[in-house]
């Protein structure tokens, strides 16, 4: 008892000091993978500063520039969560009379919060924002689906001697001209909204906007000066795709006119039709024509019929009087059948045109793809699925043309090949961007070094058991002597290592990849298995982030959604992971088992049900069974073995499940019955229908596997508040929004009985803005933590508290809402005349509300099985029942406190340790791209608001302060930028003090956190030398003293 109190006191004392890391520990305790996401817009850029690779990712909402030499990020911008990136294009600015060239990235995005479009330009070399223009436009409704929105964006740059303008076609048929010098809109033209315009081309003084109006091509000609509509050339085209050069000609292919290509020179106002056969392209469907501009008047026209050869020609388009004329300059030799080609030409008009062609095949074959580069050689692409896109860059270096090739694979890998001196393409670098799209993660222990099959000397146990004890003893003795000799050899290095204060001897660079994959002594090394939306699985070790294995499920339609540890690591046996996912775009559900250490599949993909299934989990006697519930409430077990059925039958009478999703308006609970045929079927047991207007914003169930170190909280007077630890507790935050108001309600529901244990209202609370999610929930121990944005009293919708099914005491509701002493007590009268207390403080900002749940409001009292409570201080555990059932329970006593959080939150998580003795730390992902930790002691509803009493001091409570201080030492990410954190997960290490935390979203960051400092480790600067010197001097002192004492005794006897 005393020991526990002592440890507790140590922890509390330690928690007061921050756990900042030392300078030389940077990179030892954490690692970071900076990512840019699966890129949708890629372009090679060249400027005075050198070559760069500009990438924009619509999926990850990032604009970035990579170094083509190393693949590292030069700069990166992550858009706010409410902004969806639509388009990124590289434009070249000519400044000071075309003398100074500056390459600029123009990024167009849609802001869901303000329903406006943003057009921003960034300098490619530095990443500095050059201009930013907000276009307020009537929101096209389809922009809620950003995929549709993306297609309707086109950006072009127009430069003249006097000014630089950017013309952008935005969704909703809006064309806007922006002056980049002073970031202002020069003109804005709203075209016919019924036509979906998708392409913008510029030519001498004119803008050509092309769109599709009910299957008919709509071409609008606008004046570049003021945006006025001039005329529409030929409205008879049906399907098209058009390509223009920088200033002059437009060339289109058109369907509807069989075997025809249209060449259109805007100045001439007429269209020339050329047959593909004239271009040596054969008789092919013009639908598959592809036109790529190389220079002002030169184009490569190719045919890309799937499965057929793709011939191509280099043509020039020039105005011959009033009619455009197309001349074939060169016909490319036909590549192999089934090969696609991409072309690239050197930039700059003054140089000789140099055209590079890459032909590649996307033929399937065991995941290995090959591509060939004409007259360069054959490239072997590794396992990465199909090539999504290839970008070719050509540059004349020292008079000789060289090429660079960027390939994007389906699994999210981005590989850059560069032509070396020998003209062969070699892999320059590779980035795995699938890690930016993590869908689920799981931590797995490495197997133990020691096994049950071998004895401590590495001999097979079977053999050593056969030996007689004497031989075994001699063998062990000789083994130990051998080990001792080995140790003596390394003694000098060992001594020198302890005399110098050294931190981690193992570094990321010294990581031995060939070493056996075994657990380390302190358990910092675990396996982090990650499933990504690209279909690639990763297994990284948590110490340095090295990849142990990766696996790609590209060839099937299997999409992994959920990772479950089917069998944990046991001694030397590797864990087995179940990959639960969907097949055929979510139509079916399936599971695949894999070996966690190798990634090897165990068996094939097994179908387990239809779409939209619930994957539940029952654990008994160390065996996991997964009941899968389909939409008809039919329950199928995985694995569906007789043993699993027997196990499930045992649990059946006490097994319940519930259905809830974000955006729902009700929660429904079910029990499972066994039908006469032996099948299992769910029957609805209860339903909590939310009041009209409320929708589920976030929900979280208590983690069953959380270790419970203490059943109660010891108060200052040594009495105990018993924690309410119901693992079937669901915390549910709902949002009720109108145009001007926003309220958040928190429900605590027992998911067995469906009874609402608590309901609290937070008037004026909600998301910070549309698309900027701010409502997050987490359950830690007996705490429920809710974050939201407080819009202030004017956004509070004062309602008469509605009757919620499951009936909550109304007095209690008001009491809870008003319990916060800090809040202004504005009493308002609702329309119906009922007095409702408005609890919103008149401050807008992010707030965190913490609720602590206790069994009884009175200390030393417990909820008993029979609803009785024994408040007697003398009563011991024997007087309480040892089981807990939701059917005989009382509402918990709830303490609540709200804190102002000074930053915008993107995710909430918490640390987790082996025994749960260490105090918990709540981790917040911030929009400032940081990971911030707040000790749960700070987020404590018991923090006294009034003057602090001696009992509060005894309990070591901090006095209440409304704002959570921003402590620079508590940034888990210290100086690193961890962009776009969406999920924070943690796992215990073997040290009780230390938890391994992984935060991911765009970037992947893994760090060790010790919320109560590393109380179970000797400090790094522990004086080993002092200790040894003290011991040695003591021994010497004793010997010396003994000698003198002996001498004195003898001389005394001689007297």
């Amino acid at each position, binding site marked *: *008892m005393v020991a*526990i109190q002592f440890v507790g006191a140590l922890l509390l004392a330690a928690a007061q000091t921050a756990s900042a890391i030392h300078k030389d520990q940077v990179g030892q305790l954490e690692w970071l993978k900076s990512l840019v996401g699966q890129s949708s817009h890629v372009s090679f850029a060249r400027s005075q500063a050198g070559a760069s690779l500009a990438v924009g990712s619509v999926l990850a909402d990032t604009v970035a520039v990579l170094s083509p030499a190393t693949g590292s990020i030069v700069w990166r911008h992550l858009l706010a969560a409410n902004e969806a990136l639509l388009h990124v294009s590289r434009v070249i600015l000519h400044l000071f009379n075309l003398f100074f060239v500056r390459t600029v990235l123009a990024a167009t995005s849609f802001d869901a919060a303000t329903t406006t479009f943003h057009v921003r330009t960034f300098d490619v070399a530095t990443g500095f924002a050059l201009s930013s223009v907000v276009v307020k436009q009537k929101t096209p409704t389809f922009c809620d689906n950003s995929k549709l929105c993306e297609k309707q964006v086109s950006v072009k740059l127009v430069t003249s001697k006097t000014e630089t303008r950017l013309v952008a076609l935005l969704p909703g048929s809006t064309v806007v001209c922006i002056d980049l010098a002073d970031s202002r809109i020069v003109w804005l033209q709203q075209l016919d909204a019924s036509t979906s315009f998708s392409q913008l081309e510029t030519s001498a003084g004119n803008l050509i906007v092309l769109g599709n109006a009910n299957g008919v091509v709509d071409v609008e000609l606008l004046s570049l000066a003021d945006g006025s509509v001039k005329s529409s050339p030929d409205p008879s085209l049906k399907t098209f795709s058009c390509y223009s050069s920088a200033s002059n000609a437009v060339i289109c292919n058109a369907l509807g006119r069989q075997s025809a290509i249209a060449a259109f020179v805007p100045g001439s106002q007429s269209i020339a039709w050329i047959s593909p056969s004239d271009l040596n392209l054969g008789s092919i469907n013009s639908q598959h024509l592809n036109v790529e501009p190389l220079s002002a008047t030169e184009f490569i026209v190719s045919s890309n019929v799937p499965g057929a050869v793709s011939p191509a020609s280099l043509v020039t388009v020039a105005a011959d009087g009033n009619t455009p004329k197309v001349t074939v300059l060169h016909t490319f030799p036909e590549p192999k059948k089934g090969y696609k080609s991409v072309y690239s030409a050197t930039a700059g008009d003054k140089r000789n045109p140099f055209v590079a062609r890459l032909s590649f095949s996307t033929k399937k074959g065991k995941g290995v793809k090959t591509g060939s580069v004409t007259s360069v050689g054959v490239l072997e692409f590794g396992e990465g699925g199909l090539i999504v896109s290839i970008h070719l860059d050509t540059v004349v270096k020292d008079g000789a043309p060289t090429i660079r090739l960027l390939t994007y694979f389906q699994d999210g890998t981005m590989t850059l090949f560069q032509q070396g001196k020998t003209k062969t393409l070699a892999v320059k670098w590779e980035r795995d961007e699938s890690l930016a799209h993590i869908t689920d993660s799981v931590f797995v222990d490495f197997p133990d070094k020691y096994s049950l099959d071998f004895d401590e000397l590495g001999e097979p146990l079977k053999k050593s058991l056969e030996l007689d004890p004497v031989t075994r003893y001699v063998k062990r003795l000789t083994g130990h002597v051998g080990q001792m000799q080995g140790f003596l050899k390394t003694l000098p290095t060992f001594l020198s290592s302890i005399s110098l204060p050294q931190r981690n001897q193992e570094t990321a660079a010294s990581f031995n990849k060939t070493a056996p994959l075994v657990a380390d002594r302190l358990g910092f090394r675990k396996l982090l298995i990650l499933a990504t939306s690209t279909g690639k699985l990763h297994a990284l070790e948590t110490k340095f982030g090295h990849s142990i294995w990766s696996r790609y499920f590209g060839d099937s339609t299997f999409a992994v*959604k*959920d990772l479950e540890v089917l069998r944990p690591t046991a001694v030397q046996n590797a864990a087995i992971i179940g990959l*639960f*996912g*969907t097949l055929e775009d979510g139509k079916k*559900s399936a599971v695949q088992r894999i070996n966690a250490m190798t990634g090897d599949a165990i068996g094939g993909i097994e179908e387990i049900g239809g779409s*939209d*299934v*619930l*994957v*539940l*989990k*029952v654990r008994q006697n160390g065996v996991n069974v997964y009941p899968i519930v389909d939409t008809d409430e039919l329950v199928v077990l995985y694995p569906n073995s007789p043993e699993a059925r027997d196990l499930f039958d045992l*649990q059946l009478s*006490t*097994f*319940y*499940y*519930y*259905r*809830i*999703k974000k955006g729902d308006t009700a929660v429904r*609970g079910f029990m499972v019955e066994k039908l006469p045929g032996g099948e299992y079927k769910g029957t609805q047991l209860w339903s909590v229908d939310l009041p009209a207007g409320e929708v589920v914003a976030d929900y979280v*169930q208590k983690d069953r596997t959380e270790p*419970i170190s*203490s*059943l*109660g909280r*010891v*108060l200052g007077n*040594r*009495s*105990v508040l018993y924690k309410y*630890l*119901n*693992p*079937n507790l669901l915390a549910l935050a709902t949002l009720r929004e109108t145009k001007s108001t926003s309220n958040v309600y928190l429900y605590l529901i027992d*998911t*067995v009985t469906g009874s609402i244990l608590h309901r609290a209202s937070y008037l004026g609370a909600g998301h910070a803005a549309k698309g900027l999610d701010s409502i997050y929930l987490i359950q830690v121990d007996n705490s429920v933590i809710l974050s939201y944005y407080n819009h202030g009293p004017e956004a509070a919708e004062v309602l008469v508290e509605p009757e919620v099914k499951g009936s909550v005491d109304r007095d209690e509701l008001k009491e809870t809402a008003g319990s916060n002493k800090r809040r202004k007590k504005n009493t308002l009268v609702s329309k119906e005349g009922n007095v409702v207390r408005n609890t919103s403080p008149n401050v807008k900002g992010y707030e965190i509300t913490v609720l602590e749940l206790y069994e009884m409001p009175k*200390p*030393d009292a417990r909820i008993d099985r029979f609803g009785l409570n024994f408040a007697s*201080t003398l009563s*011991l*555990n024997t007087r*309480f*029942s*040892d*089981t*807990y*059932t*939701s*059917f005989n329970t009382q509402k918990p006593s709830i303490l609540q406190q709200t804190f102002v959080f000074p930053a915008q939150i993107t995710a909430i998580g918490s640390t987790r340790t082996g025994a749960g003795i260490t105090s918990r730390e709540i981790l917040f992902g911030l929009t400032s791209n940081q990971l911030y930790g707040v000790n749960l002691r700070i987020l404590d509803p018991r923090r006294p608001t009034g003057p602090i009493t001696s009992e509060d001091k005894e309990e070591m409570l901090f006095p209440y302060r409304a704002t959570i201080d921003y402590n620079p030492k508590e940034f888990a990410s210290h100086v690193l930028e961890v962009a776009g954190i969406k999920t924070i997960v943690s796992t215990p290490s073997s040290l009780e003090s230390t938890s391994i935390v992984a935060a991911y979203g765009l970037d992947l960051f893994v760090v060790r956190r010790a919320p109560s400092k590393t109380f179970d480790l000797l400090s790094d600067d522990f004086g080993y030398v002092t200790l040894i010197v003290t011991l040695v001097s003591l021994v010497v002192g004793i010997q010396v003293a003994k000698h003198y004492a002996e001498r004195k005794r003898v001389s005394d006897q001689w007297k």
Partner: protein
Amino acid sequence: MTHTSSKDRTEIKKEPTAEEQAAIDANMANLKLKKSWETAIAPLKQVPMQGFMLYMSGNSVQIYSIMVTVMLFMNSFNAILGTNHAFKRFESTSSGTDKKPPSNANLIFPKIVYILAQCVLFGLGVYKCSSMGLLPTSHSDWLSFLEVKRVVEYSSGTYLQ
């Protein structure tokens, strides 16, 4: 010279008669009883002093307060064990002519009171321990021995999405 005079004195002293002897014995017994009661009550007289010392030593767990409390326990415990020894001198010796064994029945009550008084001191120590928070009397002392309740029902709900 001195020897002679003392001899003379003894010679002068008369042998007490049986009545006188009985009276002396009774007187002695009374005196012893009185003295034994004084001894029995003596620990109670220490209570204010000990209380003051305990008060002065403070309620925090420190070497001094622990020492004072432990001494208090040890003293009273030893005193209780040595009760007979403490009352030895008050036992009636076999004096006079009758060879009856000495009757110490009248010392029982003082002894009981003595033990009770020591118990009061002991209790003072216990109270001190309690105020120092060293007695496992509160729920918090037994908290870590409590078993986590076994939850009968099992409920979950995770969509595969």
